[in-house]
């Protein structure tokens, strides 16, 4: 066995993905060349995935603090106070490349990883969301990938007993070779019992708990997510990680039980770059060192080298710094849950990350070199060459539809708009019995047991907008999330993001990234929703083609009174249907333009953050005063699709609507345009007066569109369709496409 203690050459360093300059800096700092094991450690810690070297300086622009923020970015998850002595811990993370290679296991382990990030903080996970991007249905692998990813997310979440209550799914040829799988978890924690990953107490034992270490995913997340894909990457493929949700369930219960006892000083999950990053990061936060005895690591295979052990990304493992003397307590709890717990090292004061193997020191690196002093780049950023031409949209060359009813049906049949029930039916959305509003409305709403409160959750991003204008697109992702939360009766509290982009070494991609950060910042500042955690996924490229920029935003909101929760569908015949906000003549980047005219073109809808805030304010106020029977934000597909969804997403029998629409703009823009800052409400007739008062106090445009009536959606004079017809198309769009003949896996 090659232990790897000889100094490595520059060529080996380049092979590990380090640049020549980076290698030179390492040698200079150390006063020697690193050995192979150290090179492995350095390469993962300095990888884009772990070091955020291209994104760090830009992420600093995001607002991250606020009166309720108990923990911002930098820990395993962000934490926000919700009163009553409780807080929510949440984060979102990508598992894009692994899911493309092996959709079921890739997605499953993505869920497993994000769950660990949250229960590491001491929080009991109560909800999962997922944000998915697939290629077009014409692509030969799409259905195989959809099937696998959805089954994998369900397989893991259902088994571990955390409900998946919402998400989003889009299909676009831009993801044909690079799908996106972003997973979000939120947990509840007592605000005085938050656990962190900061090692303290020289001499304290470092304890390894959970599954044994195998050769899974060596250089997996860290390297795969830090370099572009190409055909040959398949060959270098590290052993795929396989999830074991049952073991994770044991780990979850054991960790939460242990957290009730006074034993833990610091705790972190072993995610990307496993044992290395968890020890180094815990030591780094505490300004201390860690010494590991690799002979103590529980291993699954014979003849694992120090390199393997330090870089393995085996799942369902955690690292704990315990109080000295508490070893027995830790082991006792883990024994009860039939899990391994092994003392594998201790906290040191030398600020070094050291590891021994067969009594020989195989790693000795300054922790600082691996954390704060890791490279950080200010990469050049320039708009893509086609930016200006993309923005041009000649409306006079867009003929209006011949039959608006048919156009509406075609939009409802678009996989991007159609019901996602085919997906979320495969997820247990009920377990833990907190789900007041499950998937299928604007935001999910969960109760917080023991209080009168509720949590509202939504994840959003329209990457078509982001492609056309990443600044505006990112702003819209934030405000749409907030709007969804508001429509459900929640006050937006804070955000976690997952920023999926191409290769940051390309100025055009870097520009998209910086513009998106600017958009998130401006929107979050305006809405008062700090970003408390997040994740960057670069190198989503295959053969030089990057994905559309996709900064997914998960918005978390709070309902002070659970009874204010509101759903999007019409409730009763005779209720008045009202539009908050104004419709402009905007068709750029719409689903209508793509479906009916085959164009992805123009500027995305404009967004005025002040107006957006006012519209949300009116909606919330009206909900709080008990005026609102249903609230639905207008998004993809515009007003017509929004109204159709209000008709058909509720329980049987579906309620129709009689609408009179007039406006000085093109009828297709009026019906299918995607102007922002609009919400459709339904209210009892006698409440209309009060609603008008609230709207005018906030200076928000209010239009009475019509009323809930009958079993047809009539938008005179252009649209008249039976609700059952709308529903048939809307609910069959995905099942019909997924039921087509099986697709091979390769």
């Amino acid at each position, binding site marked *: 066995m090659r232990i790897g203690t000889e100094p490595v050459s520059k060529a080996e360093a380049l092979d590990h993905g380090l640049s020549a300059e980076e290698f030179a800096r390492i040698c200079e700092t150390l006063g020697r060349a690193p050995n192979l094991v150290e090179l492995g450690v350095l390469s993962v810690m300095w990888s884009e995935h772990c070091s955020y070297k291209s994104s760090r300086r830009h992420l600093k622009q995001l607002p991250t603090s606020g009166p309720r923020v108990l923990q911002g970015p930098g820990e395993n998850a962000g934490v926000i106070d919700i009163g009553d002595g409780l807080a929510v811990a949440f984060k979102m993370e990508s598992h894009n490349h692994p899911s493309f290679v092996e959709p079921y296991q890739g997605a499953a382990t993505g869920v497993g990883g994000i769950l660990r990030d949250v229960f590491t903080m001491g929080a009991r996970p109560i909800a999962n969301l997922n944000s998915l991007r697939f290629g077009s249905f014409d692509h030969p692998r799409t259905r195989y990938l959809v099937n696998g990813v959805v089954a994998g997310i369900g397989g893991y979440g259902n088994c571990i007993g955390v409900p998946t209550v919402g998400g989003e799914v889009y299909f676009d040829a831009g993801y044909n070779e690079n799908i996106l799988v972003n997973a979000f978890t939120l947990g509840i924690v007592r605000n005085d019992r938050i656990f962190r990953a900061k090692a303290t107490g020289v001499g304290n034992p470092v304890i390894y708990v959970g599954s044994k270490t195998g050769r*899974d995913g060596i250089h997996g997340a860290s390297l795969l997510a830090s370099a572009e894909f190409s055909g040959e990457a398949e060959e270098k493929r590290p*052993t795929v990680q396989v999830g*074991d949700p049952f*073991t994770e369930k044991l780990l979850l219960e054991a960790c939460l039980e242990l957290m009730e006892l006074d034993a833990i000083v610091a705790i972190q999950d072993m995610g990307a770059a496993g044992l290395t990053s968890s020890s180094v990061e815990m030591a780094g936060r505490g300004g201390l060192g860690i010494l590991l005895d690799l002979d103590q690591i529980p291993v699954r295979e014979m003849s694992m080298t120090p390199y393997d052990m330090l870089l393995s990304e085996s*799942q369902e493992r955690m690292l704990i710094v315990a109080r000295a003397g508490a070893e027995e307590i830790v082991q006792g709890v883990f024994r009860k849950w039939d899990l391994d717990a092994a003392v594998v090292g201790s906290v040191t004061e030398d600020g070094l990350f050291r590891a021994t193997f067969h009594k020989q020191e195989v790693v000795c690196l300054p922790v600082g070199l691996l954390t704060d002093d890791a490279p950080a780049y200010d990469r050049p950023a320039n708009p893509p060459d086609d930016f200006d031409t993309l923005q041009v949209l000649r409306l006079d060359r867009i003929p209006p539809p011949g039959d608006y009813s048919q156009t509406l049906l075609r939009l409802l049949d678009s996989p991007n708009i159609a019901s996602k029930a085919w997906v979320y039916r495969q997820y247990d959305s009920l377990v833990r019995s907190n789900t007041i509003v499950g998937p299928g409305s604007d935001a999910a709403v969960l109760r917080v047991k023991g209080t009168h409160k509720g949590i509202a959750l939504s994840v959003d991003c329209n990457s078509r907008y982001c492609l056309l204008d990443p600044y505006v697109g990112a702003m819209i992702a934030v405000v749409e999330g907030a709007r969804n939360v508001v429509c459900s009766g929640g006050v937006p509290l804070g955000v976690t993001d997952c920023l999926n982009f191409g290769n940051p070494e390309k100025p055009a991609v870097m520009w998209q990234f910086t513009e998106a950060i600017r958009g998130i910042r401006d929107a979050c500042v305006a809405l008062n929703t700090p970003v408390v955690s997040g994740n960057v996924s670069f190198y989503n490229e295959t053969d030089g083609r990057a994905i559309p920029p996709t900064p997914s935003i998960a918005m978390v909101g709070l309902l002070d009174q659970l009874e204010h929760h509101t759903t999007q569908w019409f409730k009763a015949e005779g209720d008045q249907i009202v539009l908050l906000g104004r419709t402009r003549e905007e068709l750029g980047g719409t689903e209508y333009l793509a479906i009916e005219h085959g164009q992805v073109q123009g500027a995305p809808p404009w967004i005025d953050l002040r107006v957006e805030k006012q519209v949300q304010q009116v909606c919330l106020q009206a909900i709080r005063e008990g005026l609102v029977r249903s609230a639905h934000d207008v998004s993809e597909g515009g007003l017509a699709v929004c109204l159709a969804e209000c008709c058909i997403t509720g329980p049987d029998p579906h309620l129709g609507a009689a609408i009179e629409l007039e406006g000085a703009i093109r009828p297709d823009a009026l019906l299918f345009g995607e102007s922002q800052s609009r919400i459709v409400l339904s209210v009892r007739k006698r409440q209309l007066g009060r609603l008008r008062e609230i709207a005018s106090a906030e200076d928000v445009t209010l239009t009475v569109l019509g009323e809930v009536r009958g079993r047809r959606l009539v938008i005179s004079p252009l649209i008249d369709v039976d609700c059952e017809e709308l529903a048939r198309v809307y609910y069959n769009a995905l099942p019909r496409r997924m039921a087509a003949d099986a697709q091979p896996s*390769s």
Partner: protein
Amino acid sequence: MRARVFITPKKGVLDPQGKAVERSLHALGFAEAHDVHLGKYIELSIEGGDRAQAERRTDEMCRRLLANGVIEDYRFELQD
């Protein structure tokens, strides 16, 4: 012709199912059971063609559909 296909987790890939079955066997007192792996077993009939062709086609079925090459190995036997 009858084909019997055996699909097993690739070496080195975590096999939580095998692990769980092994744990269960031990719990039931079968201490002598070790190195347990759980895979799939598929039986099918292949109509027409000769043995060589059946072999080629079965192999193709395994590669394209029955086994997931990323995490699974396969083997098969043919019988008349």
